[in-house]
């Protein structure tokens, strides 16, 4: 990885020192994120920093499916929500329903496991479809889950959901305090980000991208395409599930509103604004959307807020189908241009240059 390079397909196995391996862009970014608490107020630390990292992780799980696997899912917030409900039911809550009070180190892994299984199940339903139909079927699943959670009081406590969820205290730290919560989110996001970045070049990562490019050929070289796609959904569920736990610790509550259609589309908007080509995209998108949600509401009012975010979405998609990442790509120096969307352009260009010379 040199710099924050946006062309994940070109890195060869070369012996490099760790600075070259990580890339100067990553190191600067890491430094900034590490010292951010020294500069930021509690509000900026939690409501902007922590929240962006959490939403970024959920969008990252979508990026994994859509960017590498070509499967656009609207059910990622549903998966995160599943983890959230597990936290509410098995951890502590103030709603007087369930709240078994299990320790975080039991309900945490349990929540991630259940969320990932649910993701795999949604995937197993969705992989029968292609393109727009995948979007439709995951939207249908997300909507069904929303209504089910809203009407089911036995398990989901219906419309009010669960309140009074508390982040744990351990190592003498209350992990919902601004600085610890920020670092907790940062640590999780970094693990997920690095895992996706590394995994993209792993055998399975290549497999997933090959499936995106040509399923028929994948079958004809011996791959069980369906099983590989479902596995990708399961992996995405791990990330979304972990983010779901952080999300309910952040909010202190979970209700059907958390997994409604609005939030689920929000995740798609984040991923697309940021760009689906590199795992940094979802985090960029999350920062932008969270900043807009926080400050634009004051300026234009809650009513017109969705119009505004819709406009920003349209403008970005219009000038750059690859989101912010695409813009960055366009204005940065030549070298990184031959990525997987624009390599054709680049090829034509160099061909033309060759001809002119």
């Amino acid at each position, binding site marked *: 990885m040199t710099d924050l390079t946006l062309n994940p*397909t070109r890195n060869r196995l070369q012996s490099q020192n760790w600075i070259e391996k990580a890339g100067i862009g990553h190191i600067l970014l890491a430094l900034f994120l590490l010292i951010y608490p020294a500069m930021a107020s509690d509000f900026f630390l939690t409501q902007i920093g922590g929240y962006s990292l959490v939403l970024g992780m959920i969008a990252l799980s979508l990026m994994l499916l859509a960017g590498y696997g070509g499967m656009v899912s609207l059910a990622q917030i549903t998966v995160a929500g599943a983890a959230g409900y597990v936290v509410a039911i098995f951890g502590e809550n103030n709603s007087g329903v369930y709240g078994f009070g299990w320790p975080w180190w039991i309900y945490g892994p349990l929540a991630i496991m259940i969320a990932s299984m649910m993701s795999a199940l949604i995937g197993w339903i969705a992989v029968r479809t292609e393109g727009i139909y995948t979007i439709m079927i995951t939207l249908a699943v997300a909507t069904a889950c929303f209504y089910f959670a809203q009407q089911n009081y036995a398990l989901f406590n219906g419309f009010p959901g669960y309140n009074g969820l508390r982040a744990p205290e351990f190592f003498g730290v209350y992990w919902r305090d601004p600085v610890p919560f920020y670092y907790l989110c940062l640590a999780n996001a970094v693990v997920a980000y690095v895992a996706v970045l590394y995994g993209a070049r792993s*055998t399975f990562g290549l497999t997933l991208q*090959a499936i995106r490019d040509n399923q028929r050929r994948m079958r004809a070289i011996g791959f069980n395409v369906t099983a590989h796609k479902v596995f990708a959904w399961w992996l995405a569920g791990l990330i979304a599930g972990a983010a779901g736990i952080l999300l309910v610790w952040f909010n202190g509550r979970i209700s059907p509103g958390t997994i409604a259609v609005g939030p689920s589309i929000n995740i798609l908007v984040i991923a697309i604004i940021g760009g689906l080509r590199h795992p940094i995209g979802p985090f960029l998108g999350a920062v932008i959307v969270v900043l807009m949600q926080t400050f634009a509401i004051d300026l234009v009012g809650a009513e017109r807020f969705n119009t505004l975010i819709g406009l920003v979405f349209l403008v970005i998609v219009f000038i750059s189908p690859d989101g912010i990442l695409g813009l960055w790509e366009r204005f940065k120096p030549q070298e990184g241009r*031959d990525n997987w969307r624009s390599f054709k352009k680049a090829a034509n260009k160099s061909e033309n240059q060759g001809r002119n010379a």
Partner: protein
Amino acid sequence: MATNVAASRLQGTGTNALELDGVGRQFGALAALSGISMRIAAGERRAVLGSNGAGKTTLFNTITGDFNPTSGTIRFFGEDITTLAAHERIRRGLRRTYQISQLFTNLTVLESVYLACRGVSRRRYSLLRPRASDGAMAQAESIVHAVHLDGEKDAMVGTLSHGQQRQLEIALALAGAPRFILFDEPAAGLSPTERRDLIDILNALPKHIGYIIIEHDLDVALRVSEYVSMMHNGRLFKEGTPEEIENDPTVQEIYLGGGHRHG
């Protein structure tokens, strides 16, 4: 050589790589294939000829499971694979190339071939990056070399020339330990030099690997095969050695009469 194969076919000795019995495929009212029965010995190299729309590609699709036949049975080394999932057939040693290249445009050449090697071995779900010392990676390197793509191994597949993409199609079919390969017009659109390269690659295949090659160019077909099947309107109507086919009056009339197509 050709006569040996013909003789062994007649005696029915040894296992057959492929046995088709009454294979048919309907597309609505159109019978793209009907009543295809053929036996192909292990290690045999067979050419399938026939005019456009004769059903040659459809025959391949039913054998590899891209779609199933609507009637008949297909055996691969004695095992009934008629309704087996496509990837399972591949894992049993069947391979194919496509008439229209089916490649991974956003992977590199080496990555593509590596995946083809991985697809028929273990650790397909590995979340680790492949090491250069990985067996599948080492095999991929040697296959890339065998199809003369060394210079392009780190190039994105989408940037390859047509000829190079056709070579990569072949590389994907050679990965793993193929026992039998179906080549669908591998020479289509190739320059004369590339054609010669192709013939070299095919003739350099280990002797135990049999194949069927669909080829419009008789010169190529006859140089890489020992036995020829002729198809017309979804039926097999003639089988024989290259000499028999070339001299057969019906063949001349139906196929060669119109002047055979190049490319």
